């Protein structure tokens, strides 16, 4: 059973239904448009960019997307349970800072001589703790997530500064080396981590009753309450899950950057964009874990393709923004047309 259920259209639309043939086409385009766009981008790069279509390169992109992918998937869980309203709905702005602090915790512990196992446990605990603080602020204190997680973000970023003194702390342990290595085919281990993480979260969020409840809480809180669902507990759980994702991303980032570095906060906006963009890869334009994975990979492939095409890196973010705008507006227009 898929949790990506067909929701009844909410509210009445004043838009006249378009003529049938166009409507069918639009509906099909909506369903597959973003996937087709993604495929088109991949095909264009495969034809024009040397080395693009090699196993090593595709593995590289998967590995390079691991950190932002894990963060964005964590955010997706909050988006699902909190509802998709950008201002009042679910959002976790503390995720990037969470990753920074988690990375700093990991490195500090290994520098103090603790084992990888201890460091991993402490790091994930750190992430979970940050998620718990978010959950308390949002669910029990009733603060709007946008503000609550913004405040937590600042506290967490401050703690990271205290721990690292805003310097780069190097780390090198057997576990970290294994995590940043590649398999004999040249595929980075991080790529497998991303796929594994996605598979597990997809299984939980899209294919269990728990996941279905998360969607219910986010989209139709009143109905969910009437049905007797534990709203608060589910929403709090989503924030904790997001916090844990931040902790996991922290570990990945330590292995990727051979330590904890400054500037984790810069990840925030790209991660938010990735998670929001993820909706266009689902049929009902709702946040899904697989949609977010696709969106993270789309961004990864864009950056990679541009570099392989030797397009000046100053243009990359601009072109990326334009492409995202095109994809999102096309899908939004099609959605309106369908309605």
């Amino acid at each position: 059973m898929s949790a990506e259920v067909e929701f009844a259209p909410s509210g009445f639309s004043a838009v006249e239904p378009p003529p049938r043939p166009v409507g069918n086409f639009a509906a099909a385009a909506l369903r597959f448009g973003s996937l087709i766009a993604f495929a088109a981008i991949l095909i264009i790069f495969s034809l024009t960019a040397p080395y693009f279509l090699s196993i090593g390169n595709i593995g590289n992109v998967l590995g390079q997307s691991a950190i932002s992918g894990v963060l964005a998937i964590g955010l997706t869980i909050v988006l699902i349970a909190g509802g998709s309203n950008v201002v009042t709905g679910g959002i976790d702005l503390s995720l990037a800072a969470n990753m920074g602090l988690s990375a700093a915790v990991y490195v500090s512990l290994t520098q103090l001589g603790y084992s990888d196992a201890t460091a991993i446990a402490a790091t994930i605990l750190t992430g979970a703790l940050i998620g718990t603080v978010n959950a308390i602020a949002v669910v029990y204190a009733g603060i709007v997530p946008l503000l609550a997680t913004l405040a937590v973000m600042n506290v967490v970023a401050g703690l990271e500064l205290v721990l690292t003194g805003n310097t780069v702390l190097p780390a090198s342990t057997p576990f970290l080396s294994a995590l940043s290595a590649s398999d004999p085919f040249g595929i980075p281990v991080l790529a497998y981590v991303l796929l594994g993480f996605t598979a597990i979260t997809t299984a939980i969020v899209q294919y269990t009753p728990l996941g279905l409840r998360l969607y219910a809480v986010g989209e139709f809180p009143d109905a969910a309450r009437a049905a007797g669902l534990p709203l608060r507990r589910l929403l709090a759980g989503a924030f904790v899950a997001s916090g844990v994702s931040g902790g996991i991303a922290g570990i990945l980032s330590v292995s990727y950057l051979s330590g904890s570095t400054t500037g984790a906060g810069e990840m925030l906006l790209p991660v938010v964009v990735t998670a929001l963009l993820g909706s266009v890869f689902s049929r009902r334009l709702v946040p899904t874990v697989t949609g977010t994975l696709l969106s993270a990979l789309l961004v990864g492939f864009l950056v990679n393709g541009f570099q392989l095409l030797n397009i000046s890196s100053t243009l990359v973010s601009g072109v990326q923004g334009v492409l995202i705008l095109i994809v999102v507006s096309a899908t939004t227009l099609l959605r309106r047309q369908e309605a």
Partner: protein
Amino acid sequence: MSIEKSENGLGRRDLLKLSAAAGVAVAGASLIGQKPAFAAGEELSLKGKRIAISATGTDHFFDLQAYNAQIEEVKRLGGEPIAVDAGRNDGKLVSQLQTLIAQKPDAIVQILGTLSVIDPWLKKARDAGIPVLTVDVGSTNSINNTTSDNWGIGKDLALQLVSDIGGEGNIVVFNGFYGVTPCAIRYDQLVNVVKYFPKVKILQPELRDVIPNTVQDAFTQITAILNKYPEKGSIKAIWSAWDIPQLGATQALAAARRTEIRTYGVDGSPEVLQLIADPNSPAGADVAQQPAEIGRTAIRNVAKLLAGQTLPRETYVPALLANKTNVGEVTKKLGIG
């Protein structure tokens, strides 16, 4: 933001053209003077070669000059540059290096970067059979590092500072990037010099300069320090390992009317050299590197390496100390007057 950047870019590119002519003349003369073996009838070529240039960032005068000069030099020698700029983001830097390794260029030139972050990936490039050269970052995995003589820079700057303050007084130090090798060397040289002037004291705790928002942050931190040490003479000088914090510090001194304090930095950013030239500004000295010349030298080293020559471990390009008395001369030499 982007408009501002492109404007800066144009302005700097013009400067680059000016400095290129002067730089070539100066460098040519110094090459002939020092190493006649290399200068005599040298026919370097990168024809048919793909040379990767990986910059940590280009938001700073030094980086931008070195980066652009490298791209130009690769083209001039007939090669194809693959240039990537990580925008001071370590994650992006590592991703770009990874992709570069997959592209299998004939050589990779890495400009700056935190050693612990980039070194594992430079090693992977080396393991993949790609020669790695560096600019301003010494690594065991790089064949050659082209840089200014940072020991000389650190010593010159420290001696100028100590002499300006008469061998006694408190100095405020920005030490946020000790992980970056050139900054570490300059800082160590300051400590070495100060050791022999017992009346000079580095105030604790040291300040940490940050990226981005370096200027605003330095301004805020210095303003706070000035409030902590309100009486004149309690601070004699402010030192930083590069000159962007120096810019913010100098502005903060001017705003607080504490112009008796002098500021010191490295890199020769045009805006800081201008301040030094202003007799009323508290900017004391700035050691100007020749980034464009450093960039070109690194690319010529690549060409030499690919032609089968053996490279020295480090290639030093001379730096010029600009103080209140000689700043006019130095800017003329750098071609940014």
